[in-house]
């Protein structure tokens, strides 16, 4: 028996709907606190977790960027989220940018320093946790976001 055109159409829409609903990541909880800022840079202490120390450091660095992008950092000059508070929507809208930013480790070019405050500690499930002092070049980061049309340039 041949499938009816309506069935095919329905299946197509179902596939499109399923694809549009995928890739929604649950935001990770980030423990990021402001330390200092000077001439377009912000230094913050971020906590990250991972399988080993390297992975935990990378997680802390990513958490620092996520907080700057989607939450803002109280007490700093970037109190307001650099991009917006709806991270799921923003990440979907600029998927290519964020893929390059995190997966291709482009974020490292905006990191001025990343210094662990001590050795990683063991946490539940065999993972490691570490606190890292992360210094980010916010001026360059903002320019990059503007050039890639993730945020609007200053003005109308």
């Amino acid at each position, binding site marked *: 028996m041949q499938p009816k*055109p309506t069935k*095919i*159409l329905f299946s*197509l829409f179902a596939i499109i709907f399923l694809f549009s609903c995928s890739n929604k990541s649950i935001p990770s909880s980030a423990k990021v606190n402001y330390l200092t800022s000077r001439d377009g840079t912000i230094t913050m202490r971020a906590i990250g977790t991972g399988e080993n120390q390297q992975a935990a450091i990378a997680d802390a660095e990513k958490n620092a960027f996520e907080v700057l992008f989607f939450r803002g950092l109280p007490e700093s*000059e970037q109190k*307001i989220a650099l991009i917006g508070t709806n991270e799921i929507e923003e990440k979907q809208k600029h998927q290519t940018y964020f893929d390059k930013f995190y997966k291709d480790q482009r974020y490292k070019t905006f990191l001025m320093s990343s210094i662990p405050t001590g050795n990683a500690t063991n946490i539940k499930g065999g993972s490691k946790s570490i606190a890292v002092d992360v210094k980010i070049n916010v*001026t360059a980061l903002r*320019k990059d976001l503007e050039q890639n049309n993730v945020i609007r340039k*200053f003005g109308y």
Partner: protein
Amino acid sequence: MSLENLDIKTKQMKNKIIIILILLIASIKSQYALCQTQTNQVNTVQPKIMVIPYTKEGEDIRTILEQDVSRRIAITKIKEGFDGRGFTTVDFTAKLKAAKDNNVFTTESQTDIKTQIIQMSGADVYVQAEVSSLKTETGSSVTLVLTAYEASTGNSLSNKVGESGKFYTDDFGKLASKAVESCVADFLNVMQIKFTDIVNNGKSVIIDISFDANSTYKMSSEIGADKLPLSDQIEMWMEKNAFKNNYHIQGTTALKMIFDDVRIPLKDPANGNNYNPNKFALEIFKFFKGIGLQPTKDIKGSTIFITIK
């Protein structure tokens, strides 16, 4: 080939055609969207921003700036903040000098001189910087009050207070610089939020509709094809034409109707070109002509004056 097989083949062909059509429509739509973005490459006209010093009543704005280096440093540092975001401001001191050279100023009070410069510069937004220095036994400090307003409507765009902190120094210029650094980034971030709101919800204009001294019309005059009172005709038009139906009437009397906040788009919805109060005034003008009235229009910044003869 049997009749049944032929029927199946026809159905299969139909399905294929439907799928191809769906794909074709999707492809055309995406191409159209791409073309739209390519053709809509119109540079948005940016607001003109001028940083000005705050002056108390009776203070001479010219001598204040010439004598007080810390105020000049504060203004320069604020402009530096705008430059850092890739935005060019109108230079207040240059305008002041030009105005002085052209003998623009009248002999009225100093506050009027500031107003005259703002009007002469054509600035849409002005940022006012109030610098106050304090020297005590425990150290010296500078406090900066930064406020940004829309020149025509007076809508506040951003407000911040910056502190230099206390230091044992007489270098008030450096302290002023520190006070600016402490708040300028945040100040600009808040301004940008307001600009985003303007992009999304339209620019605010004021519309003042009045009658010529010799006019025989009033706001209650029943005119147009449907013989409705003029004030209602105006409001119905505004309802349709204000951006996202966003308008506010300050008040209506027999001889005047003032809209203190009517939002107009930054880009013309019809062709994507830049839109401004002048174009909106022309639409209002056409509307009045359309209902058989003889209007005159006058535009000053973001305020539209319509006078009905």
